[in-house]
Every structure is written in structure tokens, then in C-alpha cells.
């Protein structure tokens, strides 16, 4: 991509302008748009190495699901239920969980699944059917004992500074696949715990932020991108645009000012997005059996099912980074039993449906699906039926996109509290995700305020032990 269309660059010649303007609605005119519009700076569209995954679907379990009740089976914890934790609990826990520090066995049964014999609790019976596709990392560590910090850590690689989100980095690094759609979409993101910071661009060029649809874990049937719906009838809008195009061209001819040309093009693109995005967003044309696969139409699973289905449609349409968020519901300081049962029920079938659907379309192999909370939960009890936050050791699983299936990596201690073997820090997870997408986390940098920034700051090691 040329850089000659930058602000302050020599004005393009009249001839070149006519050439590009003549393309009108054609997609060719878009070739130079990204830069002309000041949209994407630097290293766009550049792989550092061959990618194993083309896109990411990140399933965010907001609130922090418990690893010892889902994917990290700890027989010793069950055995010593009610006994005191034989070592010191983490700092900065709520005093109600540290004064006693008594172990709480999982109220759920674990069993082995698939040919791999992966342990999954009865909270995820449908996801368990995909055991042989799951790569379960049981030794994840993060920073931030509170939600705010940990959620930002998960999404931006820092618990206290304002930094670009993972999706923004990916968008920045790889550019877009589909010029009519955003490269990064966040479905139903939370407004709390950092809100837009978690899908924002911080200092990266603004176009790298996520376009959102729905909010706070909820996706209504009518949800759409902002301002996508035309306010006037198509004929009226088309006539107005024709006038506008003429006026803008005239203005550009007079000024030879590159951003004015960028505006002309972005108007064309906006016009096209009005037509091209709604068919992707509207899931009504999906056959009934597919909708059923995701649990759409069933009361408990309908909402997350539609989010997951939409994620697949975005993935198909070329969006690179798609996040699907639950509401902030996993935070069971109390009411663990009923709470986790309700939450897992809401996502289990939709996630399993997504995996099945991706697989049957041949997309799982180049789609990296990641399932994660901002942290896990303590094996010690809080109150009588709850668990406190635990960034010291928790589970993230991945599927597809170049990771080993039916595989577990890393370990926590015998109670599932601290990661002790093959620890994977959040920075490592980020480095690994970028690596799978063909990006080197140490080379994906952006210069801001006097230095080169990275998603992983000065940390991060690629966990190649999980690569297929």
C-alpha cells in the first residue's frame, strides 16, 4: 500500500483523482482507502510468519468461572472438602474467605470424555462432547485480584494503564479481510470493568477499535451497528448522495486536499455497508436445524445462542476478531451451586453448537476459539457456598486454529489454587494467540509517546507446546 495519500502529502494529480473517482462504487477504489482515510497505519496486512489461524472467536465468561468446578479436576480437593488449606491463601482476598481458608470440594461430578479422556465436569455436558477438539490450559495466571483490573488485563495486557485491546492489535497487524465490514467486532460487550477500553484502540489508529453490536451480554433480535439503518428511502438517499458526490468532487478539485478525497470514498463505503452488513447481522435466514444447534428458541440458551451464531456469520464474512461476551454473571462469591449451573446451562449448548457448526463448515481448523474468564475462583470457600477471585491459577481452553485437541497443558497444585507447572501467564496467552494468527508479539509494535508499545509489554512467551 502506498503512503502517498497521507495528510500533507502532495495533492494527487487531477488525472489520478479522476481515475479513482471513476471507480465509483467499485471495490477497486477501496484499495487505497485505508491509508487515504488515515485508517490504518504501519504494518497492516503483514504476517510475520505463516498463520495457523485466520480469525479468533473469543468467548468471554465475564465474572470468572471456577476452574475447579469445570475443567480442572482435583480429586484431592474433593477428598479434603472442609479442611483447612495447608498453605497461605493469596493476598488481597476478601477477609470472609481468608479467615477460615477452608477447602470447598466441587459440588459437581467430573468424568472423562472422548478418546482423549479429558476431564470435564457435569456443568458442560455439550462442550464435553467436543473433548477431543479442546486444548485445555489449566495453568493460566493473570494479574488483578479485582474484576476491573483482571478484565482489562485479559483484554489489553495491562491491569492499570490504557492500552489497545487484543482485537485492536490484531486488526492493526493484519488489516481487514472484508473491506465492507469491520475487522474487529465485539458482540454484547460489557459497559463495566473498563467497558470500551476492552475493545478500544487506545493510541492505535481509531479504525482498529471494535464495532459493537448489542451490549452487556445481551443481543436483541433487532441489534445492529450504529447508524447503519438509512433514515430516508433508498431513492431519496441515492439522489442526495449523487448531489453530495458532485459537490465533494468539485471541492476536492479546487483544494486537491487528500482527506477530502478520503471522505468521498468513505461515503461510498458507508453506502455499501448499509447494504452489505445487515444481511450478515440478520440471522433469520439460518435454517431451523442450525438455529436449534445453537439452542436458539430455547429460553435458557436463546440469547447466547444468537450471539454465537452471529459470531460464526461474522467469521464467515471475513471479520478477523470476534468477541462474544456473557453478562457479568460468573461472579459467585455466594450461591455457587445455583449460579454456576444457570450460567453454564446458558452457554454450554451454544458453544457446543458453534464448535459443531464451525467444524461442519470446515472452518474450525483456521478459527481459533478461546474460552476464558478474567480469572478463575478459589478452591477455598467464601461464606458457605461461594468462591472468591483467583487469578493465581485458572483454566482457559482453546479449540481449532492450530492447537492440539484432546490435550491438557499445565497444572495447578493439588487443590487447583496456584498454577505450578508450565504456567501460562496472560501475556503468554496473548503472545500465543498472536503467534497463531501469524504475528510475532515482539515485532507487532506501535510507536506512541516516545516508545514502541507491544500487546505483551516486555513479557510474553509463545506456548508452542500446545500447537498441533
Amino acid at each position, binding site marked *: 500500500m502506498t503512503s502517498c495519500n497521507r495528510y500533507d502529502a502532495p495533492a494527487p494529480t487531477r488525472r489520478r483523482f479522476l481515475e479513482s473517482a471513476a471507480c465509483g462504487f467499485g471495490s477497486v477504489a477501496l484499495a487505497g482507502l485505508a491509508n*487515504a482515510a488515515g485508517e490504518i497505519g504501519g504494518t497492516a496486512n503483514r504476517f510475520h510468519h505463516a498463520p495457523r489461524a485466520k480469525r479468533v472467536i473469543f468467548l468471554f465468561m465475564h465474572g470468572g468461572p471456577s476452574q475447579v468446578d469445570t475443567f480442572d479436576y482435583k480429586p484431592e480437593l474433593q477428598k479434603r472438602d472442609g479442611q483447612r488449606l495447608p498453605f497461605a491463601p493469596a493476598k488481597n482476598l476478601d477477609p470472609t474467605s481468608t*479467615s477460615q481458608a477452608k477447602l470447598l470440594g466441587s459440588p459437581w461430578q467430573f468424568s472423562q470424555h472422548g478418546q482423549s479422556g479429558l476431564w470435564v465436569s457435569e456443568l458442560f455436558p455439550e462442550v464435553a462432547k467436543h473433548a477431543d477438539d479442546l486444548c485445555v490450559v489449566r495453568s493460566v495466571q493473570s494479574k488483578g485480584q479485582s474484576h476491573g483490573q483482571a478484565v482489562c488485563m485479559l483484554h489489553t495486557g495491562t491491569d*492499570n494503564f*490504557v492500552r489497545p485491546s487484543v482485537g485492536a492489535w490484531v486488526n492493526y497487524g493484519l488489516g481487514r479481510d472484508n473491506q465492507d465490514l469491520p475487522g474487529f467486532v465485539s458482540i454484547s460487550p460489557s*459497559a463495566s470493568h473498563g467497558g470500551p477500553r476492552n475493545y478500544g484502540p487506545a493510541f492505535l489508529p481509531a479504525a482498529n477499535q471494535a464495532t459493537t453490536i448489542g451490549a452487556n451480554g445481551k443481543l436483541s433480535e433487532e441489534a445492529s451497528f450504529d447508524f447503519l439503518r438509512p433514515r430516508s428511502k433508498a431513492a431519496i438517499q441515492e439522489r*442526495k*448522495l449523487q448531489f*453530495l458526490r458532485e*459537490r465533494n468532487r468539485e471541492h476536492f478539485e479546487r483544494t486537491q486536499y487528500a482527506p477530502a478525497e478520503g471522505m468521498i470514498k468513505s461515503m461510498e463505503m458507508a453506502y455499501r455497508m*448499509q447494504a452489505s452488513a445487515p444481511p450478515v447481522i440478520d440471522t433469520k435466514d439460518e435454517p431451523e436445524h442450525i438455529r436449534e444447534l445453537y439452542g436458539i428458541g430455547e429460553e435458557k440458551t436463546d440469547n447466547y445462542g444468537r450471539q454465537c451464531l452471529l459470531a460464526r456469520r461474522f467469521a464467515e464474512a471475513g471479520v478477523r476478531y470476534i468477541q462474544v461476551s456473557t453478562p457479568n454473571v460468573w461472579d459467585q462469591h455466594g450461591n455457587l451451586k445455583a449460579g454456576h449451573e444457570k450460567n453454564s446451562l446458558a452457554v454450554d449448548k451454544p458453544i457446543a453448537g458453534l464448535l459443531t457448526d464451525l467444524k461442519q463448515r470446515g472452518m474450525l481448523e483456521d478459527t481459533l476459539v478461546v474460552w476464558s474468564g478474567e480469572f478463575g475462583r478459589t478452591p477455598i470457600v467464601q461464606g458457605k457456598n461461594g468462591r472468591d477471585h483467583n487469578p493465581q491459577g485458572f483454566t482457559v481452553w482453546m479449540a481449532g486454529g492450530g492447537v492440539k485437541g484432546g490435550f491438557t497443558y499445565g497444572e495447578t497444585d493439588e487443590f487447583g489454587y496456584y498454577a505450578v507447572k508450565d504456567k501460562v501467564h496472560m501475556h503468554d496467552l496473548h503472545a500465543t494467540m498472536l503467534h497463531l494468527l501469524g504475528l510475532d508479539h515482539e515485532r507487532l509494535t506501535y510507536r506512541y509517546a516516545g516508545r514502541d508499545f507491544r500487546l505483551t509489554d516486555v513479557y510474553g512467551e509463545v506456548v508452542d507446546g500446545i500447537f498441533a
Partner: protein
Amino acid sequence: MPRSIFIPAFCLLVFAIPNAPATEEIAKGYAFFENEVRPILVSSCLDCHSEEAGKRKGGLWLDRKAGWMIGGDAGPTIVPGDVDGSLFIHSIRYSDEDLQMPPKSRLKPEEIATLEKWIAMGAPDPRNEEMAGAVRDAEIDYEAERKGWAYRPLVRPDIPKIPQSIGAKSDVDSFIFSGLEKNGISAAAAAMPERLIRRLYYDLTGLPPTREEVAAFVSDPSDAAYAKLVDDLLTRPGFGEKWGRHWLDVARYADSNGGDRNFTYYQAWRYRNWVIDAFYRDLSYYDFVRAQIAGDLLPWETDQQRADQLVASTFLALGPKMLTERDKEKLWLDTADEQVDTVGRAFLGLTLGCARCHDHKFDPVSQEDYYAVAGIFRSTEVVTGTRNGCVNVASWIERPLPVGGEEGEILKKKVERLELAMRLTVEKSFMKKAGGKMALGDLPLAGVIYDNDDAELVGEWTESTFSSNRFGANYVHDDQKNKGKNKIIFRGSLPESGTYEIRFAYNASGNRAANLPLTVIAQDGKHKVTLDQTKAPGIGGLFQPVGRFTFEKGGDCEVIVETHGTEGRYVIVDALQFIAVKDIPREAKAIAAVAESDVDPLLRMSEGDLKKELNKLIEDLKDEEVAMAPRDAAEPDDIHLRVRGEVGQLGKRVERGFLKVLPTGSSAEISEKESGRRELAEWLVSEENALLDRVIVNRIWQHLFGRGIVASVDNFGKLGTPPTHPELLDYLAIEFRESGGSIKSLVRKLVLSRTYRLSSTAGEALAKADPENRWFSRQNRRRLTAEEIRDSVLFFSGQLDREPGTATATPHGVDLDKPFSFAKDKKRTVYLPVARNNPATELAVFDAANPDLVSGKRAQTTVPTQALYLLNSDFLHDQSAVLGQLAAEGASQPGGEIDWLYLTLFGREPNPVESQSAQGLVADLSGGSEDPAERAIAVGHLAHVLLASSEFLYLD
């Protein structure tokens, strides 16, 4: 040994022979190292800590003896012979969650045992390589750095001589045109009057001229008329609103916290309005700086001045904070960090935040410099207590504004009560709930109390309710048995760091232990004390102080009760109280007041009632005359440098002070009793600090010319861009200084220059000669800002409400998380609430500043979302429809609506082509109808596309 030569491990023994041990014991030690220790180091450590691997994480090498002796960033790693005192062992034991090595997986227990044994042996290590490569990074050469263009003292430059024919209108032109001349560039022509006036109006007031104003200037564009117009615009309220907004970008102004909880900052608007007013009345920039850094500490003569200064210091409190951070020391340091970084960028164009973890990689700012300044802000209180009753969600300080008479006293009392409620709420959350009826339930004890139920009992203990003088349902005793084996461990968790008195509850009697051994594990290690249980406790007859100790929030805090040496006597354990020393007087007062009726009910409220009361107090105060101002901490102090910026990794203590690269000037020493903000402010504005002036004049230049003389306006460091016109920069800085820091004088000087009045159109020759307009050979075009777009549209439609806004965020609730709709709000955009994490779409889409960061220069992007907004937003549609009506009403003749629109929007009549094209559009969209209503709708569509056109959106 040269650094580049690496000697493989197997060679070492050979080379080591000259230094070979003399005794057999040492030989044995070396053998142990070779056989047992080295393999562990090789397999688990050297990947990150050796010259061969090219990695020296944490500054530590473990591939040579000198490596671990000197140690890394945290000091010596191994103390030979001292297993427990060696950081190395500490980290491999995984006992500290912040320091665990190897980071990925714990060593096997037998490996840890081997390494412990090795250190116990005295850590024999035959690896004698020198630390050639281990020399610390070179010290910053401040003397040399001070001569750099950004830091050096201001010297008035000669004004370049340029030919008269150029028609310079000010000294500014002499600098610019001599630069052009040297580079053989001829400047663009003067801007056409109708374009110049549009630019001038927007630049100075953020609003367009009326058609009459355009006409008047076009008919007389003389220098005198222009100068008169400039003076007029400088005195309009719009000047304060436009230029105040520039500063609000720099000040990362917002009406909500952002961070993790988006609490509404009910009082932030006062700062916003103060800034607008400061620009409007041309407050000296030096006073402007002083007030923002230390307004709460400055002397005052009138209540108004006091109020202004308090409000100005809100600057420090405005930043985004992670209020849910559980580690309060980290919260304090992160808050200080945000302030250091903001002050650095805003006033000095320096990225001081870079030096939190290590010396600045590029600029002459050491980590010590950073902590010298950070100590000032760590000694400043901004966050406190709890906002919502949850102990983990902090709040911020609010201070009463001076309100005269009795009302003022009532207000002061209210603010004090709010803070007391916050503190008590935190305390209650930490106070353990004891079962049963508390004998001392009526005593308003402060701090944190642990009942015997909360402790870990080791051995056999007997519960008892025999004595009614007890805390909680019962107490335990050891029945005089199992001496030496029975023990009890209290594990504490305290709300904040500080010095606490520990008090032990028991009922006294002659047969109790007289020398009960207690071990207190505090921040600075273990302390042994003894307690005499034969003597009656001093407080309420139940709690007996056993000593004062310092604890860190989240750090070690244990009290262990042992029973050895108490044979033949009872040991009684009932409860343990931790009370912050500073709260002891308050508690004494509360206890004494129990019998009295006028004690503040807050002191005796249950946790639930207290939370309700807290919310009520917050709600009650949000509309009162209070400021979100900081204050000096009760115990201002220097702080420790933090190794790698980690809160828990203390380095050396750094005296509070300023940046060494800048002259210390006449600033006074920092008083021990104050934070040092007063001195910091004086140092910033001191005569000798030329950087402050360079940074602000450059900001002002940028707003008028589209690019700074230093293009990186927030970064005057090495990675910023050097000035294109260093002499001009210094000239402006000197003039600014001599004007007493008058922003208006500077703006006036700049807009009167010929350079400002150049056309933005570059002919082919000029575009080629100065493609980037590096030499300011023409004006730089710019897009209207988000605020200018919205304000202009309302201005055109006659709906702009020119009254200043006040607490515009308050009606939006406790958190600013819900999407905004400004449909009904017609005030100038600068007065609309700014929510972090929840930017109003119409502002965000046109690159309004992100209030999380200092942004002296806004991005200017062109993205399809803007086009979608322009095409489909309700705002543009609705306002265009109004404009259509107005045009229909305002047209002097049939078909005159088009002229009316062009005159209103662009200050000119349409040319014949435009006119014809517009007629065509209106005719098509009204279906050729003569019906005025139909036609007005069609004209509304025309207004819509003109507002979406590049001619409206860009300033020539």
C-alpha cells in the same frame, strides 16, 4: 574478560585451577556444585539469566558467581550460609506470589532441597567470570543534556532580516519568511477574505461567522478591520469555550472515573468551567499552572479566590483510577503515577511515566527522578474510603468550598461526616462478625477485630462461656494442657497500610499465664512479645494493648499465640483487635461518648445502616458547593523506588524533588510536613524552566497553524520531533514570559501575522517545494472538530443555547455507563458530560479527545462510521429539517432558499453551477411540487447534504 567471549561450562574447571581451593572442604563444595547444583541452574535458570542466552531478566545473571553476588534489580540474590535470607531461595520456594522462580513451573522439592543445602554450605561456586557486561547502564550526563534545545535557558534570538517587499506583519513573519527564503520557497498567496474570516472565527471561538459578519469583512478586509475583528473575538465568551476545550484535552478531562467503575464525578464540571473562565479572562499561564498543581495549598485573599484555587486542583484528581484495586498501596501508587505522567506530558512534554520501571530509555529522566516526583503525589491524597459501601471500591476526596457563615459550617460538617462514613464502612467490612451476644457489643471499637472463631486453633482448646466478660459467643482456654504444642494463629487482613496497635482480649485472673508468648509477624519481620494475663486488660476491661506494629495492606499480618513456658497456668484467647494508631483518639472519644446522647449516630450504626447512610450522604452532597480537590496526606513522606515498578519490590528511598535535567531554580526545599506540590508548582513556573514556556507556546501555535513547531506537542523528548523553527520557538517563549503568561496576547500576535493569513492552497510549484508544509509556506487545512460540527449545526438552526452549562453530568446517575442522547441538549458541546469508557457517538466518531490520556493533538481520521453518522443520524436529519424550514421562511423570493442556505452555511452565494445543481435536487426530491411544506422538506434534504459536504466539514 571481554564480554563477547563466552566460556563453555565444561572449560571452566580448567581455567579455574589457578584459583583452585586450597582445602579439601572447598573442593568438596565445588564438586557438590558441579554434580548437584549446576545441572539445576542449567535446566531451570540459565535460559533467562545468562550471557549465553543473551538474557538477563531482572538484571540478574546466574552463570557466574559475581552474578548472584551482585544480584539483580532487587539486590544480592544469594547470601552464602543464609538460606532463609537469600532472595534466591525465597523465590524458588514459591512462597511469595509476586516473586516465583522459575516462573513457569516450580522446581521439584528435592531440587529445592539441594539448592538450600548448597547455600547452607556457603554457596561454593567456582565460576569466576567477571561482570564485564554487568556494569549498570551509563549514568545520565545531566550537564550535557541540559544543553539540549528543549531544556537550555531561553536566549532572545535575533530577529531575521527579511526584505520589506515581503510585507511582514509581525516578527513571526520574519522568522517564517526567512526560513522560506533560505529554502527557496515562495509562500502561498494571502487567503481570500471569506475564507480567512471563517478560519479566524472557528479558530478563536469554535463557531462560524454570521452572514452579516462575513459580508462586513469582505467589504473591508483591511489590516485595521482585521485587527479590530481579532480584538472583538478575543473578548467573546466563545474564546474561553474554544480554548478551554483545548486545555481540557490536555487535562484528560472527564465527568466520570472510567477505569473499572464509571462513577460520576459530580464536581468535575467546576474544573471545566474554571478552565473556560481562565482562558476567557486570560489568567496568567503561570497562575494557571500553580493552581492546578497546588491550588488547595495556595494562600488566598477572598473566598472566590480560595474556591477557584480549590477547584483548579481538581486537575490532579480527574484521572481514571482503578478504584476496585484491592491492594490499596498499589492504588495509591498507580494514582500517583497517573498524576506524574499527566503533569509531565501536559506541562513539560515529557513522558515521565516511562521512568516508573527503569531509567527512561531515551530522555534524561532517571528512575530516581521519577520517584522523587512520585513521592510528592504519593504524599497527596486523592483516593480514600469506599464509594459504594463495598470495602474494595475506593472513593475520592471531596472538599467544601468556602461558603460563608453558618451554611459554611454545616457544609463542612457534612463533608466530614461523609468521610467518616466512608472510613467506618471500610472498618465495619473488616470487622469480623462475632456470633452470639457480644459483651462489648455496645462499645464502638474501631479497627478490625478477630474473634477466637476466626483463628486457626492448633492442638486442643476448650470453648468456654464461663466468664460473661468476653467478646463474641465464647472464648477458648487450654485447660493447662498440651503446653508447647497448643497454639493459635490469627491471620489478619487490614484495610490499609500503616501502624496499628494490637490488643488482646481475655478475662484476667491470678491463675492465668503471666508470660504468654506472642509472635507478631509484621511488615518488618517477626516480633516476640509477652502478655501477662493475671492483670486486668486496660480497655473496656477486656482488651489489652500488646504493642504497635507496621503492616502493609495485603502483606504479612499474623499473631501467633504459643503456650510453652506457661505450665500450670491457663491461657485464655478471646479476641484480637488491630486498630490504626491514628484512629485511637477517635475511638476513645466514641467510647467516652457512649453514655452521652449527642454522639454521632454514624459511630454506632450497623454495617447495613452505615451503607445506606453513606449513599445518602453522597447523594446529598452531589449538588452542594464542594470540589473534587486533593489534599496533602497526613504523613507526607519520601517513598522507595520500586524495582521494575513492582509495588512490592522496594528499592532505595528517594528524597522528594524535581527533575535533575531542569534547573532547580529558586524553588524552596520541600517541607517535611507537606507533600511538596507547592514547591513543585513553583519549580515548574520558575524563570529558569524554559521547557514550560516552550511547551505551551508550541501548543498554541499548533492550534492556529495545524502543526506544532515541535510536531509532537506532548513529547519534547528524543523520540519526539525536533522543532522546525527553534529560534521562533524560543522567541515566542520569551515574548510569552515577558507578557506574564498571557495566552490572549500570544494568540493575538499569531493571528495577526501574515503567516496565519496565508491561503491553504498550494500551487503545483509550492506543493513540490514544500510538500509537507514543513516551512509553513501556507496554512494547513483542517477538519472541523466534533464540537465545532455540532455547535455549528445548532448555530445555523438557531437552536444553540449560549448559556454556560453547569453540572450537566449529574442528572445521568451514579455511573456514566448508559449511552448518551443529547437530542434535547442545545448547549455548546464543551458543556456536555464527558464519560470515560462511554464516549458520546457524535463526538467520538469525529475524533474527540480520549479522556483517558493527555491528548494535545487530536487524531484526524476519515472512517466510514463518520459517513454513516452524517447520512443516518437523527441529529443531522432533525436539524436539517429545521434548517429547511428556516430557509423557506428566510428566502426573500421563491427559489431563494438555496441562496439562503449557502449564505448561512458558507457565508457566500452559490455559483451558477451549484445553484443549478441544488435546484435540481430540490425539484427532484419535492417531486416538482409547489407546496411550500413539500418544498421545505426537500430544502431540508439539501441542507443535510451541504452539512455532510467537505466544504462544510473542512476549513480552508
